[in-house]
């Protein structure tokens, strides 16, 4: 932060010039903050530093974990093609905000819904053996996107599923301040102020701040495992009254298609927002117009000329059945400056080469950064974010665009978040889940 202010003061009117950011690194250390190395002050020169931060975060979060849950320095991301990851051992928010406002614990086994218990029988023995939730298959249930804007259904007619997890730093703050329950939130003296990450003058992480990870998953065939980060999970659909269907649980292999990371840092009290997708998800609007299309996508059918794009699936939404509706999704241009797409493309190329250098079959090289949103003026409540709009097509499918307060803007949206009492919750909606 001090460095940013210094640069602003020292080089306020120096014209921007092209600059090479520091290299992306293979490291299990999550960056505590962005390391701004640009010596001229402009969006063009700063954005690459933020995108390097995002890729370093992606690599560290997806690093193979050691027994303590942190990245194992004796392993490397993708050395075996795919691997278990650090962030998948964070705590799912559904396991933090428990019925009756019960106090959660970091290492408690994940509660298994009744409908899933038969399927999970064998794995529960594994959990008992190691005494923590590391090998518990995740239960993914959410099938609608933020603000219930609708589900996204893949080209096989299967609903995409979502998870939100928080790291231990964030979990510990929630626990220490009893924010896991409505009663605790009512008794809390504001403001909510999650721990900020920080780095030293050399860019070395001092503190890992509060981190939220939102992920999107699609069911994949065994043959597709080479292309996705995948895991076997219990896909759970709670019972519904409208439309009416009973609870259903299935053991499925799912592939990661979207990853959205929010990290509160010293330079970014509005948090830093990094959003990644699988490279096969969708074409861009420009791809469609120019006809430069791949043979297939996860959420777009190149052969369907009459399919309307970016349509919310018609109701009723029933994730227990295969849908006749297949989402036809296109990434709309959401950037007002060319640097956002250009910087992400350059960093994606660098990172993918790095990951393929570890193992030519690394699944991690099949992911791409869409962009990083950061506050250009952290003193303001909104922080004047750059870019102004940013959407992940798997997580904010139907709110792509450039309309203020309507189109996807991470900071603008999360600035509205409160707890269950009318108190700002420091850019996170998860506290609203308290019971």
């Amino acid at each position: 932060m001090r460095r940013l202010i210094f640069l602003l003061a020292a080089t306020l009117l120096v014209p921007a010039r092209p600059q090479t950011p520091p290299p992306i690194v293979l490291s299990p250390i999550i960056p505590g903050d962005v390391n701004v190395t640009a010596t001229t002050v402009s969006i063009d020169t700063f954005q690459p530093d933020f995108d390097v931060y995002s890729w370093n975060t992606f690599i560290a979060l997806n690093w193979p974990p050691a027994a303590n849950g942190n990245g194992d320095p004796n392993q490397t991301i993708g050395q075996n093609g795919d691997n278990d990851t650090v962030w998948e051992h964070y705590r799912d928010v559904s396991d933090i905000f428990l019925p009756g406002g019960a106090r959660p614990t970091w290492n408690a086994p994940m509660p298994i819904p009744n409908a899933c218990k038969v399927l999970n029988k064998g794995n529960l023995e594994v959990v008992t053996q190691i005494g923590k939730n590391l090998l518990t298959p995740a239960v993914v249930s959410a099938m609608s996107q933020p603000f219930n804007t609708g589900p996204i259904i893949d080209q096989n007619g299967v609903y995409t599923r979502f998870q939100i997890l928080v790291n231990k730093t964030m979990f510990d703050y929630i626990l220490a301040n009893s924010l896991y329950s409505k009663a605790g939130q009512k008794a809390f003296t504001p403001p909510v102020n999650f721990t900020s990450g920080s780095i030293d003058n050399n860019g070395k992480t001092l503190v890992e701040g509060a981190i939220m990870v939102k992920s999107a998953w699609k069911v994949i065939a065994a043959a597709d495992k080479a292309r996705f980060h995948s895991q076997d999970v219990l896909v759970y659909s709670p019972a519904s009254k409208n439309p009416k269907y009973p609870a259903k649980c299935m053991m499925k292999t799912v592939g990661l298609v979207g990853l959205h990371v929010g990290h509160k840092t010293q330079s970014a009290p509005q948090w830093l927002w990094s959003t990644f997708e699988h490279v096969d998800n969708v074409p861009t609007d420009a791809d469609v117009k120019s006809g430069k299309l791949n043979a297939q996508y996860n959420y777009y059918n190149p052969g369907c000329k009459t399919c309307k794009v970016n349509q919310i699936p018609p109701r009723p939404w029933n994730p227990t059945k295969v849908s006749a509706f297949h989402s036809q999704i296109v990434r709309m241009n959401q950037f007002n400056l060319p640097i956002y797409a250009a910087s992400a493309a350059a960093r994606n190329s660098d990172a993918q080469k790095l990951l393929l250098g570890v193992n030519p079959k690394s699944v991690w090289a099949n992911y791409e950064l869409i962009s990083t949103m950061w506050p250009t003026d952290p003193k303001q409540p909104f922080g004047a974010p750059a870019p102004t709009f940013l959407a992940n097509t798997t997580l904010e499918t139907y709110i792509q665009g450039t309309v203020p307060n309507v189109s996807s803007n991470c900071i603008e949206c999360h600035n509205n978040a409160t707890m269950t009492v009318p108190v700002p919750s420091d850019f996170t909606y998860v506290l609203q889940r308290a019971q």
Partner: protein
Amino acid sequence: MTRTVPPAIPILDSDIQDFADMSAALTGFQSSVLKPALDPVGLAREYYVFAVQQVGESAMATLVNAYRAIKTQPAQQIADTLLETSGASPSSQAQLAQSIVAMWYLGSWYVPGVLGGGGFAPPPLQVISSAAYTNGLAWRVMQSHPMGYSQFTFGYWSQAPGPLSSFGVNTGNGGGGQ
């Protein structure tokens, strides 16, 4: 008014900066608010290009050059000169300056020299963009926000608004080039 053809020559950053500095003197805001070093919105460029499209390159260059000739003067003096506040009927150059002030405050384009009854402005030709609407300086002077779009933190209405200076208003005598 129909739009003219966009300027064929590239727009220099120095032109945008001078336009922003001139606008700061005209509006009473800090130039660093109108055109921050880290500028994700780019309103100064958008407004400059838009105004040139409306009135032509020559008219805009004449006005900016007039500013350049007096830019070392205090902001109030610059504004009085360019807006011709002491004159009975402003010239077309001063009318352009008025339209630029309205553009920054209201995010809309008012045709230079066209006034409505009772001195009120007529309906604008157009709201320039959603960014122009949400970033209109009028909201800052009101220490408020546009309808349907707040940049404040939840619960701000229960607290007294911050001072005008926290909204970027130049409360001193400066203005241009800060």
